[in-house]
């Protein structure tokens, strides 16, 4: 997915609230190349429902700046979180805790192309919710909802079931990957 496709995936950005991290000017140019005049609001201003909160988190960024701003997100408010780690190495525990702590649901997590240009390897679309928001499909560029206004019990049973089984079958793969990586390393001289 191109970085400029992300604002539409997040539901649009009539104005943006930069919540911290990265080079704000460069990233906004990459995100909104056709709309450089998009109004920017400060994180401590009252949040406009049509605004999109944006933050960058990466290896060299303190994790707490954006999460403080996140607590000001009202119910229904949307967040586009840009991540500066390669997908295969993504330490998602660093962002999952603050998101859940602020009452946000991860709606979509997508890989981003051309990270060498802007340093964004993947992105998360999240929203502050009071009840579960409709689920979305992976890599769907015009997000479709899988259920009604909120996931029903069958969808939640399916979701937790898939998570549990995937958690099981990924374990031998992680072990195999560790073995392969260990095999790639040169034997120590000692």
């Amino acid at each position, binding site marked *: *997915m191109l970085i400029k496709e992300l604002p539409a995936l997040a539901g649009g950005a009539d104005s943006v609230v930069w919540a911290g991290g990265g080079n704000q000017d460069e990233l906004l140019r990459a995100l909104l190349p056709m709309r450089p005049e998009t109004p920017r609001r400060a994180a401590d201003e009252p949040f406009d429902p049509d605004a999109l909160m944006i933050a960058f988190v990466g290896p060299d960024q303190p994790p707490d700046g954006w999460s403080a701003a996140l607590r000001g997100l009202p119910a229904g408010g949307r967040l586009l979180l840009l991540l500066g780690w*390669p*997908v*295969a190495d993504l330490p998602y525990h660093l962002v999952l805790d603050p998101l859940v702590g602020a009452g946000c649901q991860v709606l979509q997590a*997508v*890989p981003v*192309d051309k990270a060498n240009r802007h340093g964004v390897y*993947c992105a998360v679309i999240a929203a502050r919710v009071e009840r579960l928001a409709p*689920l*979305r*499909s*992976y*890599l*769907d*560029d015009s997000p*479709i909802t*899988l*259920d009604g206004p909120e996931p029903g019990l*069958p*969808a939640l049973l*399916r*979701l937790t079931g*898939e998570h549990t089984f995937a958690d099981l*079958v990924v374990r031998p793969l992680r072990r195999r990957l560790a073995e392969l990586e260990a095999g790639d390393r040169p034997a120590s001289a000692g």
Partner: protein
Amino acid sequence: MALLSDVEAAAYWNERHQQESDLRSGGHMAFDEATNRMFYIRRLALLMDLIGLQSSPVAPLFLLDAGCGKGWFSRELARFGHQVDGIDASEVALDHARQEGGGPRFHRSSLSGWRSPWLYDAVICVDVLFHILDDAEWERSVRNLASLVRLGGRLLVADWHEEHDQAFGNYQVLRGRRSYLPLLQDCGLRFEGWHPYDFRASVIGLYAFTRR
């Protein structure tokens, strides 16, 4: 006209894949190779619309091409960056598919017999189910393919859009809405629509279902 038995049908497909040209063998026998190329591309474009226009080399979509034959759709979808498993019952077709390479993994399996530790973002079954002549095996196949679709994933199966089922010749049984819709609703899938090939006089199109 009596329908082919399972053994006769398997022999028919092996022989057809052995004797016919690359596209015609798994495509439309009434068309020459050039017309079949148009037919394949038309169906590929429809698949693109229904699977989506995004891909990622680092976190790809996982697709199952059920009844892949010589693997044309599998290879093209793999060229889009997707991770594709192709399954087919014909060893002759799979030998050809493996020789072509191109990224997909090919396995010999019936549609009802494929087992996987992973679910798929999309399971496609292009012009295969109406060649399963036995109704019980057809139902086992549809149920198994549906079970392989992850939450939010899609099942795309080709057949006609009439209400009823009807046999044509001795190796085709077209099945209609009355067969697909209740069965797949029972499997937890939502019917999204039927998309006709709109190719010459073809009455076939893709049923699209989403795992909800």
